[in-house]
């Protein structure tokens, strides 16, 4: 497999050492990330799983330089980046990282083509050149016929495809997708995942968050998170659902996002519990109701 070859010469693209993220002050302090250490090599396709509020998004934001860790060291290509100025992080985001969010990815008043060309605009590229690059990228994701559409005229899967095109248009070293399939039906999810998998085959590094155990079959590595910490990290073979995820997926019908969430809860029970003295701490007691609330509000929407 090509993956082994890639791994062989790759240095760590991303290295997190004891990264923590705290929100709020005093008594209201919440611990979103609890001394997380993670190494990501070039060419990996990582799925991050875990219940809502476990810190997945915070981890994505820190890796994507949208947020900075409270403690710990974050090295991107061996360079510490956690204490850079906003200007520098903006340039790093522009040149090395591509983002796909769960929803509201595209700016509604611009055409798909202009949206995809947006990162190039901030690079100061000329109009013709950036439109050409954007057009090429849209062709690659199979969206060329939709260039002059507005986001409101596209289906959910097409919006996400365009978002992926935008994320890739700068030739980033890392693609971060925070629940890219969260708002999509199964057909849309497949479209998006197939697309990401193709991009991965071309040598890109991808890290994505999902609630759907089924989707781990596209990944080469699955990271499970709970309460702000990584509790399991396993390599999987492409095309196969991760062993831990598989344990729960057939017990659930898995049709809606809520079912996915329920599946994740089941998954957490199947996993070895977080082996730290933290369980006895007050923090966990405070966190549990917050988690519950989030779930309730989610199922409402």
């Amino acid at each position, binding site marked *: 497999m090509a993956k082994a070859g890639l791994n062989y010469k790759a240095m760590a693209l991303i290295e997190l050492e004891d990264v923590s993220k705290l929100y709020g002050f005093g008594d209201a302090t919440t611990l979103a990330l609890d001394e997380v250490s993670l190494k990501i090599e070039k060419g990996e396709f990582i799925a991050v799983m875990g219940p809502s509020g476990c810190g997945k998004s915070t981890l994505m*934001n820190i890796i*994507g330089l*949208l*947020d900075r860790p409270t403690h710990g060291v974050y090295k991107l290509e061996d360079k510490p980046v956690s204490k850079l100025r*906003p*200007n520098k992080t*903006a*340039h790093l*985001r*522009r*040149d090395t990282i591509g*983002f796909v*969010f769960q929803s*509201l*990815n*595209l*700016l509604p*008043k*611009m055409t798909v083509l202009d949206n995809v060309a*947006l*990162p190039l*605009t*901030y*690079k*100061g*590229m*000329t*109009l013709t050149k*950036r439109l050409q690059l954007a057009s090429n990228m849209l062709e690659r994701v199979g969206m060329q016929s939709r260039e002059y559409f507005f986001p409101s005229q596209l289906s959910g899967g097409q919006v996400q495809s365009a978002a992926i095109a*935008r994320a890739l248009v*700068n030739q980033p070293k890392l693609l971060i997708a925070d629940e890219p399939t969260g708002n999509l039906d199964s057909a849309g999810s497949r479209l998006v995942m197939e697309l990401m998998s193709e991009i991965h085959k071309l040598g890109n590094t991808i890290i994505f968050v999902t609630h759907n155990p089924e989707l781990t079959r596209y990944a080469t590595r699955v990271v499970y998170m709970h309460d702000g910490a990584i509790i399991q990290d396993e390599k999987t073979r492409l095309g196969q659902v991760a062993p831990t995820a598989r344990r729960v997926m057939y017990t659930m019908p898995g049709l809606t996002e809520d079912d996915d969430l329920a599946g994740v809860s089941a998954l957490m029970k199947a996993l070895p519990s977080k082996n730290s003295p933290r369980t006895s701490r007050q923090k966990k007691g405070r966190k549990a109701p917050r988690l519950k609330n989030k779930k309730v509000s989610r199922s409402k929407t």
Partner: protein
Amino acid sequence: MKSLTRGHIKIAVTNLRSNRLRSLLTMLGVIIGVTSVISVVSIGQGIKHQIGDQINRLGKNVIIIRPLQLGAGQTGSALPLLSGFSVTSGLNDQDYKAVSSTTGVKMAVPLSLVAGATKGDNTSQTSVVVGTSDNFPSLVNQSLAEGVFFSSDENSLNVAVLGQNAANALFNENVPLGRSFTFRGQQFVVRGIFNQFTYTPLSNDINYNDAIFIPYDMAQGLTNNNSPIYEILAQSDSVHSVDQTSSQINQNLIKLHNGQPDFSVLKGYQDLSSANKILKLITRLISGVAAIAMLVGGVGIMNVMLVSVTERMQEIGIRKAVGATDRQILNQFMTEAAVLSLAGGLAGVILSLIINLVLRILTNLQPTINWQIIALSSAISIAVGIIFGSVPAIKASRKDPINALRNE
């Protein structure tokens, strides 16, 4: 970065268009400010031009003698002159004779007002009836459209020459040659119509287009030598001797008036400078009002931009996520405010052009808009946009990307 700015402008225009009513209301202050400044300045310029034209037409060697009371208070309309309360003490036939016999005076023309109603076909109305002498057309450098002016032999005949508006008002036709009207019980025959006089609304002159001219001797006869002269026009031999001649006239008249200088002797260009003073004052006043309008407009822009920044947090988040720096976001919102304000300025320019046109059609004013004032007001409106857009733009640029994405 040039193409980036162009992109910002494009986005700004799109946003402006997609929210028309809000944009219009926001721009209102700027529109009002720019429109009022341009209109007032252009009217002032126009009047200055018109007065200048008139003086050039009269010639620089023309001296105007007026009773002092008239010169002091009255502006514009001829009607106050007809009330007569301040006129009688002014100039009389003796003064006219003294002026015309002064050395250095080539010719002099009296303009006396005769009160009374004129009766044309079937309409009776109060008109401005001016008694003057045969030299009047040549002194004010005015030609007749139809007929001829009365000559020196015809000074006691019942003839009249009309200004164009007077002809229309009296007979409802443009060329009422040979028609007659009744004035103070006497029948007058129309024998000439003047071409349009250039008329300056803010100067002290009677609008000659509204006037009926009859021979001076006739006017004196009608009023028992009692008709007040509201103005004597004199022409000196040459342009160089104007000052000398006017002081000579001044001396002669003071002698006649027992040492009381209850009259004024003006040289043509003095008229211009007094009009200028008034115009400058008005312009300053309106500029102050316009400055306040711009200030209010600027605050409006700031307010709307703040709302816009809050509404578009998600957009700011996405832009930052794909690599926009703080400065680029700042520039985007600054550009948007400037475009909004400039659009208001341009709307103001267009509106003032329309006002200009309407004024030209409906009044005698001839406002002139020059490119300097347009450039200046555009520049000021851009500056207003940048100054008042900076607070919202800074707010947008300082926003943490993650908070912006979460829409907090």
